[in-house]
């Protein structure tokens, strides 16, 4: 494994490596903090919802009857299932089963798209009935109902934007895990040392020699070696799947937000 490899000149030399550090826990911590900010972003809307529902309980109750509980329930199940396939995709990748991981990820993306299509039909049906912000029809509603539908469009809309972002993110990940996990280490070695026969040696962590170069002529004063790392099944390092794990965290968060949106809009009849 290249991250345990050592590149040295056979003679004393100063060698430089490309600094790469993989703080597995650190990158997940960063992602979780980001999720907290996302939660507060939606939190502001939940606050608005709470205030207006408190002020217009009857209107909210009436307006919610216009929403289709069946479509809402189906969409909930779709998102929950996509969370399952997402979690499984990570689990399979951790074991190095890249093929399975890709398929599960594609399923997740597909479920996300189905969710969006349902959402699209739901919205267009509403708009068809003249229920959309600032429509002549809606301006005749009691104020609480205007607020309910305003919040409905804003909150499910923002959630939809997050689903779209998730779908894009996961599509990128499909590409990443199909090509990767693989990373490239570039070792640059410069030897100002005395002329003579110089060789480059690649050793593993135990000092065992893995590769030695041909003799390097005295006119050459710096060499760079590129090592490609491709883990095999069962030999995955955390940094090989942390990106997918973080995307998964994002996807689950989008699911959690829907878990709250669903009862708040569909089930308060």
């Amino acid at each position, binding site marked *: 494994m290249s991250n345990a490899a050592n590149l040295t000149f056979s003679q004393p030399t100063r060698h430089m490596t490309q600094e790469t550090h993989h703080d597995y826990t650190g990158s997940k911590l960063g992602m979780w903090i980001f999720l907290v900010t996302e939660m507060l972003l939606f939190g*502001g809307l939940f606050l608005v919802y709470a205030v207006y529902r408190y002020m217009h309980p009857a209107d909210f109750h009436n307006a919610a009857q216009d929403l289709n509980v069946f479509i809402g329930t189906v969409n909930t199940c779709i998102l929950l299932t996509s969370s399952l396939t997402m979690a499984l995709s990570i689990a399979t990748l951790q074991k190095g089963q890249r093929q399975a991981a890709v398929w599960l990820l594609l399923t997740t993306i597909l479920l996300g798209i189905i969710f969006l299509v349902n959402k699209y039909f739901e919205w267009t049906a509403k708009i068809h009935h003249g229920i959309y912000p*600032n429509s002549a029809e809606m301006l005749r509603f009691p104020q609480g109902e205007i607020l309910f539908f305003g919040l409905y469009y804003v909150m499910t809309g923002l959630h939809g934007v997050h689903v779209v972002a998730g779908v894009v993110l996961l599509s990128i990940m499909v590409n990443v895990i199909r090509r990767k996990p693989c990373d490239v280490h570039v070792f640059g070695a410069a030897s100002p040392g005395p002329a003579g026969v110089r060789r480059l040696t690649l050793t593993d962590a135990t000092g065992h020699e893995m590769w030695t170069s041909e003799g390097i002529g005295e006119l050459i004063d710096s060499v760079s070696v590129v090592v490609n790392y491709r883990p095999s099944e069962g030999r995955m390092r955390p940094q090989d799947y942390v990106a997918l794990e973080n995307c998964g965290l994002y996807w689950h968060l989008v699911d959690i937000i829907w878990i709250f949106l669903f009862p708040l809009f569909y089930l308060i009849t």
Partner: protein
Amino acid sequence: MTAAVIAAAPREPSYLAYRGRYSGILGWIFSLDHKRIGVMYLIAQAVFFLVGASLGVTMRLQLMRPDNHLVQPQVYNALFTLHGVIMIFLFVIPSLSASFGNFFLPILIGAKDVSFPKLNLMSWYLFMIGAVVALMSLFTGNGPPDTGWTFYVPYSIRTSTNVVMGLTGVFIIGFSSILTGLNFITTVHRLRAPGMSWFRMPLFVWALYATAWIQVLATPILGITLALVVVERLAGVGIFDPAKGGDPILYQHLFWIYSHPAVYIMILPAMGAITEIIPTFSHRTIFGYKAIAMSSMAIALLGSLVWGHHMFVSGQSDVADITFSLLTFLVAIPSAVKVFNWTATLYKGSIVLEAPMLYALSFIFLFSIGGLTGLMQGALAVDVHLHDTAFIVGHFHYVMFGGTGFGFFAALHYWFPKMFGRSYSDKVARLAWGILFVGFNTLYFPFLILGWLGMPRRYYTYSFPQFASLEMLSTVGSWILVTGILLMVGNFLHAALKGARAEDNPWGGVTLDWKIPSPPPLENFEQIPVITQGPYDGFEGQAPR
């Protein structure tokens, strides 16, 4: 400490001299080095500060005499909006956190960089894009926004000016602020050097850490609120529109849920820098380390609970008025804890009054005025009289400029030799400080009196002759202040171009930043230091704790 080892090692090229894949300007704008990113923030902030300051000076010219018509009324509305937006969102919110925080946070905890260098660079880009978008609102659409920096509804959804673009700019800047906070929290948790326990972190780091939490927790609320105003303007959803049942006071709640804690985003890092400067120039370890560290966290916590004090006359309920008034008085406690600890650190110290220390001491003085006038407004009955008067403007300029601004200048004088490896003229720096300090008080103290006498804020002009002399005095103060600022800027520019080489430790500081070369090498440390004592132990004649 490993000071000897670090100093004895052969010198790596400094971060300024380092040649990476790109050179010249590209070597800066594509650099992932936290130090270069910090310097880029510093330059951008300095430019925005000067732009904001010139808008402010223009406003002072307009208010210099009664019934003055130097600018059009609509221009005046745009002036105070832009002065506010630029100063708040482009100077004091990134404040010391983005510039000095980026530069010194990793150094002070013994790390080579922040946790996410790429994200860090992205934050800078977002900041610049946001700034450009916000400034573009000046020149496009139906003229610059005229809502004030608070964007209060319903006016902000009714006015025909270019509010959407201004809001979009602020939204993007907010996102940049969130990412910086996220980066700093992760860095503090993950990249402290071996032996750098939580209570061995320098107090500037504690302040940045507390600030980062506020950035992460409060900024999203601002983001969604501004987004709602944009949606309101574009689609007429009705959430804040009273004609459709929306409640404008709810907007005020949401806005201040962010914008009061934002005051602490602005002031906490400055307090942190002051806490670094005072021990160094008193040659004495800090008094009450844990109290200061915890007061930073307490300010972050309590500061999130007091937003309603901006709304005492808005029509919110009496219960809310009383609750928020009480909580507002509580938040004074941790701030006072800091002030007492700073003064206790000075006690029996060997105080050296060099420029950074002068700024630090005047910070304490000006911030105390700002804080105490804040308490006056926190009292319900008094606030009814003071609300929306020049008193408020005076108060927050004492906090924002006397606090954050002077803290920024203090940090700049303190760390300039470290950051750029050059010394500035101490004589000029002290002279500039004197002019600035006099100018500042001549400019802003009259605001407090004028407000008390009833001069409203944001008024284009006034007709009462009894305000004339104080308004005039204030305008003269603005000229003195500008002289001081220009002298200070000139001093730094001269130092950057022609200054003498600075020593590694010109002030005799003991924190990690003073144990590496000036300017620091690319990776800060030859070897990651191992920390064995508290951050302020090791002043001469001081036994370590």
